[in-house]
């Protein structure tokens, strides 16, 4: 479904992504792990072109989306993203946050958008917060709203950018439950995470990024059990020593 070929990105002279090749099948969940600065988030943001790559190609269902001629707006409708810092619009209610894109991008009428949004909120046990403003919610609740907002456009792919990193440990679980539910429904997801439990639990494949390259790409059991690449071993050993694995 997603095919990435030779994707390369510089920030100034710094090589952030170095000839990345990666493909994600429909219904597959791929986790990107690696140290800070290894390029995980940049790779993720290239997939919906919040970051423009310098070289290489990304194809979505065979269509090259990195061509300059490809309309970003259409792409961003098909690829949803959830950010580490939620980025909900603080001046809008939860309901308005969720219905904004359906109403303005897909031209759905207000009543229908509202109905769908309430339905989705109910699915995540959040319908009673429809009228609340983001700042009145806990971090975990805000992040769940952000997930609903990203799903409201019915995207084919959902990108998650360290969505639990800003949450208190006891709130991580509620967000993970939501994501697990989405996996069961067969949603294609690419997930950047520092939460190894998350990766082990949810991923069909885990990619370890090191210095802008994919050093290792394997099913979680294999990558966490018998990592092959010395950098992967080093990374996991450090996590183990830090008590985070």
């Amino acid at each position, binding site marked *: 479904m997603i095919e990435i070929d030779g994707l390369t990105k510089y920030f100034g002279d710094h090589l952030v992504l170095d000839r990345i090749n990666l493909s994600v099948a429909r219904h597959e969940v791929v986790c990107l792990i690696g140290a800070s600065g290894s390029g995980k988030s940049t790779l993720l943001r290239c997939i919906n072109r919040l970051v423009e790559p310098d070289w290489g190609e990304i194809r979505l269902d065979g269509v090259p989306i990195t061509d300059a001629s490809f309309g970003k707006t259409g*792409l961003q409708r098909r690829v949803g993203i959830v950010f580490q810092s939620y980025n909900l*619009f603080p001046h809008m209610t939860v309901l308005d946050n969720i219905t904004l894109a359906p109403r303005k*991008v897909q031209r759905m009428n207000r009543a229908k958008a509202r109905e769908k949004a309430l339905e989705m909120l109910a699915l995540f046990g959040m319908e009673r917060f429809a009228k609340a403003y983001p700042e009145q919610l806990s971090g975990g609740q805000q992040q769940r709203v952000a997930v609903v907002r*990203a799903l409201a456009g019915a995207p084919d792919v959902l990108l998650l950018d360290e969505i639990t990193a800003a949450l208190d440990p006891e709130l991580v679980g509620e967000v993970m439950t939501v994501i697990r539910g989405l996996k069961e429904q067969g949603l294609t997801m690419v997930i950047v995470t520092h939460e190894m439990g998350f990766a082990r639990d949810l991923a069909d494949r885990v990619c370890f990024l090191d210095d802008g390259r994919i050093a290792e790409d394997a099913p979680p059991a294999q990558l966490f059990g018998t990592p092959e690449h010395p950098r992967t071993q080093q990374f996991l050993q450090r996590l183990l020593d830090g008590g985070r694995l």
Partner: protein
Amino acid sequence: MIPEPPKTPPPPPRRRGFDWHTALVPGLISAASIILVFGVLGWMVANNQNWPRIQLQFFNVEHMIAAAPRVVRGFAINMQVWLIAMVSIGVWALLLAVIRSLRGPWFAPFRLMVVLYIDLFRGLPALLLVILFGFGIPALRIPGLPNSGLFWGGFAMVLSYSAYVCEIYRSGIDAVHEGQRAAAHALGLTEWQVMIYAILPQALRNVLPSLMNIVVALQKDVALLSVIGVRDAVREAQIYTAGTFNYSSLVVAALLFLLATIPMARLADWITKRDRARRLQVAG
């Protein structure tokens, strides 16, 4: 050795009843101090040998009453110009700020135009613009254009003030977190939609206190139009002075301005304070 902790938590500290002493004494001292300082200053003014002349020239009640009707009439013009200019500046400057903040190479010439506009009109004295437009354009006698000095003077005020207000708006737009823009783009909104639905509402909330200050400043600066013959409060007062050689009419105008600007300034303070409280609440 650590002492044994008590079995039950200690009772809450006893609340003190209302204490007249602590409540009143500082207030009384302040009042006494104020009366003393202002009393001495007032006594010094009143006993100055020039005071009767000053009183006669500036605070002559008869002249004040005589001049009041025309000055008040003039002040109504100030208020009208102020209201119209305020709305025009608010809209025009917002448009400029939005254009300046649009990204994308196609908008480059428009961004450049706004930059030049701001450099030009922020760099020129408002007084010069008022004279240039207020006298200059009616003198051209171009058919189809209004030839009232009032219109073109007001127009000049709008041009000048918009340059400042545009920069205020822009600082508000820049202060909106980059993540908000990214989130809005990621939802598939176009550049304009991102601006209108995600960025601007937050930006306006950011800059409301600064805008209130500009509103107060504008209220006074409308008096600049008096130099091109617009019969506003200042002009009317001057006309009265010219006939009587008494300046009390100008004091009447001054009082009217204070009457209008002080409540506005208080309102601005109140909005700033409320805004600050709200932010702190969010941060906590």
